[in-house]
């Protein structure tokens, strides 16, 4: 009996170690699979039609990476709405991971002059709906909309025509590595879950308690990973565009050279319209 117990515990230990180590597995030896077509998050807004994945190749406008562990050089990425071109064939070495060209999250922030703000907010929302998107957030002077990735450029172009665009910040964040990593972790967690379930069926009552505890931990981890994967797929499928009607005074104050002409700072409506004759 003691021998059987030790064997169970040893098996659980080995399985746990395998799960813990799977995240640091050499990505070069594992084949990355393309993620399933992405869908919008349930808790964000009414579900828009899923975006057709952009399969063309072109230079991305900008790229920022959040994954600090990602040391791989940036690859040319497809921009949304670009003409379709077949992806380059896989390299001769079968062990190299395939780059999923569509794992890019596009976000933009447009700063517009403070003029006819209410109409501007309504127009931005209307443009987003026309492009198959939806309203995500709305404040007095700021609105965030989400549009299918394929309509990202068209939406930005339409927003540009609304008024005086003071500043525009577009980011293309490549999350391919994180997606590949998640895929592997989920795969390993699922197989771990299967093994633990199989062990549970054969285990005695006392050992079953330990296995169930481990099974609960693995299940929790699996749910966390799948949630993150779902979130990323949603962000990839739906680009986020924020339009703010605000001056850039606060952001420029620290960087801008202050010209030695005080009368320039006095220009504007408040001083002109203050009709004090004794001033």
């Amino acid at each position: 009996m003691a021998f059987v117990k030790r064997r169970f515990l040893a098996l659980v230990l080995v399985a746990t170690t395998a799960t813990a180590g799977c995240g640091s597995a050499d990505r070069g030896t594992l084949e990355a699979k393309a993620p399933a077509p992405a869908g919008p998050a349930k808790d964000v807004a009414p579900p828009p039609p899923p975006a057709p994945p952009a399969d063309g190749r072109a230079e991305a406008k900008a790229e920022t990476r959040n994954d600090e562990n990602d040391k791989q050089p940036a690859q040319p990425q497809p921009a949304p709405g670009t003409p379709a071109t077949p992806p380059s064939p896989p390299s001769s070495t079968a062990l190299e991971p395939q780059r999923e060209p569509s794992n890019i999250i596009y976000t933009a922030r447009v700063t517009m002059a403070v003029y006819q703000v209410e109409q501007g907010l309504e127009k931005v929302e209307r443009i987003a709906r026309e492009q198959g998107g939806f309203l995500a957030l709305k404040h007095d002077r700021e609105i965030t909309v989400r549009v299918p990735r394929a309509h990202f450029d068209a939406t930005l172009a339409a927003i540009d025509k609304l008024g005086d665009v003071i500043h525009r910040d577009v980011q293309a964040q490549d999350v391919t590595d994180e997606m590949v990593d998640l895929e592997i972790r989920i795969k390993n967690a699922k197989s771990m879950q299967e093994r633990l379930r199989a062990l549970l069926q054969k285990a005695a009552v006392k050992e079953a308690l330990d296995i169930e505890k481990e099974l609960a931990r693995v299940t929790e981890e699996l749910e966390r990973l799948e949630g993150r994967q779902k979130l990323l797929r949603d962000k990839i499928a739906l680009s986020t565009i924020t339009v703010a009607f605000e001056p850039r005074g606060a952001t420029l104050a620290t960087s801008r050279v202050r010209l030695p002409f005080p009368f320039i700072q006095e220009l504007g409506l408040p001083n002109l319209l203050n009709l004090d004759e004794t001033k």
Partner: protein
Amino acid sequence: MKKYLLLFAFLLVGCGKPFDVKTAPGFVALENQTEHAYRATTPEGVVVGVRVVDDEDRGDIGFWTQALLLQLRDVSGYALLENVEASSADGTKGRLMKFGHDEDGKPYSYWVEIFLAQKRLYIVEAGGAKDAFDRAQPNVVSMMSSVKVKCSSAVAPVLASRTCNRW
């Protein structure tokens, strides 16, 4: 004769303002202005004003246009609606910039015209709530185009200095 000449010179140097503007019907000129050399308003609060910056000939029109755009558009968030060449009543070339801006959630119009003449920078401003401004626009345009920043009299070439520009 000497006395008359001295009096004439004194009048040229010491009197009047260094520009001319004709107050349009529906506007009343305000008194005791400090920041503005001239300011007039309608009952609805559409205001036309003129600022004069003395001894300012360091920049050309391009420089001042860019400096004003940076301040009003980038820093203060005014929407640039139009940026065109302008001309004063005496033919001096300048720049007219038309802006829009929300004040307390309502749209306002704000026009700025700049001229360089006689070592001075002239800034002609006009502004008001958009509806009122649109109604007063013909008179605003009339006032802005009546601004003279250079003496156009026959003696101007002879007295080509700031003493010439007094109205």
